[in-house]
């Protein structure tokens, strides 16, 4: 590693940042592909089916036990799906607004990946902090980026120049804007408690004072912790529901709602352009799950076995990354599960829930948290 040390600090920083970007983006894209498979499998199991179990690769498929097992698991389906997306005809209908039509998939894809930049997905590995950009205003950055996500959908709806996508786009914009308010308000208690906007600091605070979603867990049993439990639970639930709405997942997938709008904003898209919306949706889910893990469930920490301290060895660093991934995948599973549990909301119910229930509740929660903190911090 002598050549690394010989570089100037700036070059080292650039080198490690690029390395981290590669190391995050690669696995993330793989995870996205496998999340689609997981979604199909989970859906299948909940509906008493088997799910995808067909694709067999020539060489690996002939390994005695492993090959058939992987095939049964549907392990190669993401691969084949990807290839299919690429080689399918990329059809551009004659009546679309071409520029926006081309732009929309990219715009819906990029923000989801940008959010991941500030998420601390582990403590340290060697001397490097496991976060791509250690921003002091991390959370503000995420909210800024997340709100860009809606433009992809709105543009897609507008560009398609036909009714169903247009309706989908309108719904998406109304829905995402309203739920962003509730989402933003639901994290304010977290900031009140933590007193910092840096996501790394938020995790550090949670390691000492208990998870934000449930402060008694991992933070001792002081009076303040007990009093903060209801605040934490409420803001976590509101954030979770808003995250569902932001990612256009059921029960809030008004933008797609295939029973009413064919398939909503991406009706006119085919091939890899549709694939990009799809990847964007799942990447958004991952971003949401990562945000929830970081803000409310203590990020890469676990409050026992000394797992809440920054790692001092490579192995511990990897364990921390594993913990983070575990929590994130747990959220992904819940996302998929919820899909088959709840029927889709009606549009007015959705707005009602957002504006008349969640926003007032989030506001009340801010005041409650502030009061608790004011009373107990003396």
């Amino acid at each position, binding site marked *: 590693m002598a050549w690394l040390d010989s570089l100037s600090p700036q070059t080292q920083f650039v080198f490690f940042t690029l390395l981290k970007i590669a190391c995050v983006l690669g696995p993330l894209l793989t995870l996205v592909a496998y999340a689609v498979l997981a979604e199909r499998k*989970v859906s299948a199991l909940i509906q008493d089916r088997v799910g995808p179990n067909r694709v067999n690769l020539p060489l690996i498929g002939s390994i005695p036990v492993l090959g058939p097992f992987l095939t049964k698991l549907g392990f190669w389906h993401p691969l084949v799906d990807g290839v299919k997306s690429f080689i399918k005809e990329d059809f551009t209908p004659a009546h679309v607004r071409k520029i926006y039509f081309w732009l929309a998939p990219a715009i819906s894809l990029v923000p989801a990946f940008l959010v991941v930049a500030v998420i601390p997905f582990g403590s340290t590995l060697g001397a490097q902090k496991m976060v791509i950009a250690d921003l002091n205003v991390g959370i503000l950055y995420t909210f800024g980026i997340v709100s860009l996500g809606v433009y992809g959908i709105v543009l897609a709806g507008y560009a398609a120049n036909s009714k169903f996508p247009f309706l989908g786009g309108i719904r998406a914009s109304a829905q995402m804007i309203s739920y962003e308010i509730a989402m933003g308000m639901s994290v304010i208690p977290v900031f009140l408690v933590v007193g910092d906007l840096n996501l790394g600091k938020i995790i550090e605070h949670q390691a000492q004072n208990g998870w934000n979603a449930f402060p008694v867990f991992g933070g001792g049993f002081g009076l303040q912790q007990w009093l903060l439990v209801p605040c934490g639970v409420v803001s976590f639930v509101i954030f979770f529901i808003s995250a569902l709405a932001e990612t256009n997942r059921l029960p809030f997938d008004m933008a797609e709602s295939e029973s009413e709008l064919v398939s909503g904003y991406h009706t006119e898209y085919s091939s890899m352009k549709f694939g990009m919306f799809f990847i964007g949706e799942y990447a958004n889910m991952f971003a949401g799950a990562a945000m929830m893990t970081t803000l409310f469930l203590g990020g890469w920490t676990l409050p026992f076995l000394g797992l809440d301290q920054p790692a001092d060895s490579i192995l511990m660093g990897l364990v921390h990354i594993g913990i983070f991934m575990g929590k994130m995948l747990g959220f992904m599973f819940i996302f998929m*599960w919820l899909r*088959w549990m709840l029927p889709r909301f009606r549009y007015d119910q959705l707005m009602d829930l957002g504006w008349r229930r969640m926003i007032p509740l989030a506001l009340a929660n801010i005041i409650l948290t502030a009061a608790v903190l004011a009373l107990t911090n003396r």
Partner: protein
Amino acid sequence: MIVKRNELTWFERLYLPALIGGLKVTTRHFLNTLTTKTPVTQQYPEEPTRVLPGYRGAPYLVRDQDGATKCVSCQLCEFVCPPKAIRITPPGPTGKPADRTNAEKMPEEFEINMLRCIFCGLCQEVCPEEAIFLKSDFSLTGLARNEMIYDKEKLLALGGTHSGIQKWKQKLEEAKEQEIFPVKV
């Protein structure tokens, strides 16, 4: 009938009971399918499919107990077929005579375009000779369109032999049933 709509209690309006109910159902199904491995899926090409009686598959011509063509080329099925999937070439005055004794003629050529057929069963219904039946075949494949036009030979081979002379028997039973049907108002 007027359905009474109960006001939801505040607890129900929290969506919580519905949520917990949904949670229970999905968890049960998820765990059941995961552990006992009893999914309802049929692994179609590997596991043969069961077709229930009364299924309307592909229409085929049948032979009688002596192996003779039952069809008398009356062309009723051709006439009734909604998508015009059947094309019959009658023998004409100079054509081959029927290969059974109690029939005047048999079709020179009998074609069913399986791509057009909608498996409605009208041909079976209308046939006075009970010569055409919808069998249980449902997966008809071909590499070209003209492969999907089944000619007389193929239809007869696929249809097989019909056991015993059944002419009018079933229709008679049906008619009788209609008469004794208790039509009470």
